[in-house]
């Protein structure tokens, strides 16, 4: 059992299986909004589904359209239950906040 203490960016709580990567994730172009799978070529999580997971990775990268991809995943019910980042940046943070039916996110 590992305990991580962080700063909450958005309210909520979740329980689930952790999916961990040491590589940053680009939601735009890197995650398929239809299936919730990582599709970035050569990514260590390529082909894995992030749906319902506690997704742990260092930080988001790529286009800011990524926020809308997180929203799309959420509304389709295939978003991660929570996201834990080393460094919080706006793409991921905004993606987590913009939906009404929000989960939680911490860094």
């Amino acid at each position: 059992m590992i305990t991580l203490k962080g700063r909450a960016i958005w309210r909520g709580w979740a329980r689930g299986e952790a999916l961990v990567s040491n590589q940053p994730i680009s939601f735009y172009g890197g995650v398929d909004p239809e299936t919730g799978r990582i599709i970035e070529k050569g990514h260590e999580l390529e082909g894995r589904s992030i749906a319902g997971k506690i997704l742990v990775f260092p930080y988001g990268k790529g286009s800011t359209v990524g926020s809308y991809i997180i929203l799309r995943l959420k509304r389709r019910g295939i978003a991660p239950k929570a996201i834990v980042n080393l460094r919080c940046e706006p793409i991921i943070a905004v993606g987590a906040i913009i939906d009404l039916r929000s989960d939680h996110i911490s860094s």
Partner: protein
Amino acid sequence: MYLTREEERMLEGEYGYAVQKSMEILVALGEIYEAERMVEIKSAQISGVSYKSLGEEGLEFIEELAEDGRVRVPTTLNPCGIDLERWRELGFPEEFAEKQLRVIKAYLKLGIKQTLTCTPYLAGNRPRFGDHIAWSESSAIIYANSVLGARTNREGGPSALAAAIAGRTPLYGLHLDENRVPGIEVKIPKPLSGYGYAALGFLVGRLAGDKIPLFRGMKLISDEELRLLGAALACSGGIPLFHIEGITPEAKLNPNMRASERYEVEADEIKEVYEELNDHDVDPDLIFIGCPHSSIRELIIFLELLEDRAVKKKTWIFTSRATRDLGERLGVVEKLERLGVKVVCDTCPIVAPIRELGVRSIATNSAKGAWFSRNLNGLKIRFMPIESLVELAVK
């Protein structure tokens, strides 16, 4: 972060759902970046307009905001996925066009102007020096910061929209003097022109990391070249601001501007960019300029280079409706179209459903246009000067 009484009321929902949601986003960003307070903005530019990037869920989100939301400052829109007037003629899919029109309707309901361009500063949204603004669209951000001396962080579509609805943005990053100083000086080997600046931007974007570049020893650079340079810097490096000694306003204001780190670009490095952005044995399906959207001057240059020869390949110039209207009045558009060139508005080669239009390979003078065509749309690419594009088009 400090909020005024008014801002607290906005956050508590007294002004409705759209204002509250917007403030939630802005306060969260302010907390992440440890902003002291909010600052009122003069304008906003919104990306995330194409249905291709928003999808059904993004469209719903905008429609929900539009139920009780309205922007508080002049706000303009990035290109969408279709030419609003000619999408049928140009072969855009019907179903996509319908969704796209719904997105635009929702933005209009929010009080946003239907400029549909990545060059809002050529279409009535031109910030003044020192203005605080909240812009998305990386090529517009870098132009506003660098060439106009306005102040914006690298906003995304949702945060720029939130700022427009709330009329404010958290005060941090590039809104503050201390974060606008250069971190690396760049010297170029010899004077460049046109697409050479696009290649330079692509190269420097990569090597500068998160440092703001200061170009030294550049003499003349046109507004069009500043845009190609900026778009490429933002594309390869996510750079939101650059300075050019003696040319850009903040560098002019401070002639002693220097950075501790220096980099001298070799001619070979520029050549490597040309090679990297050129796939071999490609006979492009589509030749285009206009990433960022072409100015009236580029329309005229393209027409002059054609020397009355008709194009034999699909050749499109992407521009804003505002610039096309001007071109129509000057007779430039009619002449271009008579020679077979389509002057396409409201959309761009990156956000249009370009594969559905049957395009598999392109040629352009924009490093950004080339890179996204390959990496986002999966196309084969050629990157070449405008003169060569014209020759390729008429061959």
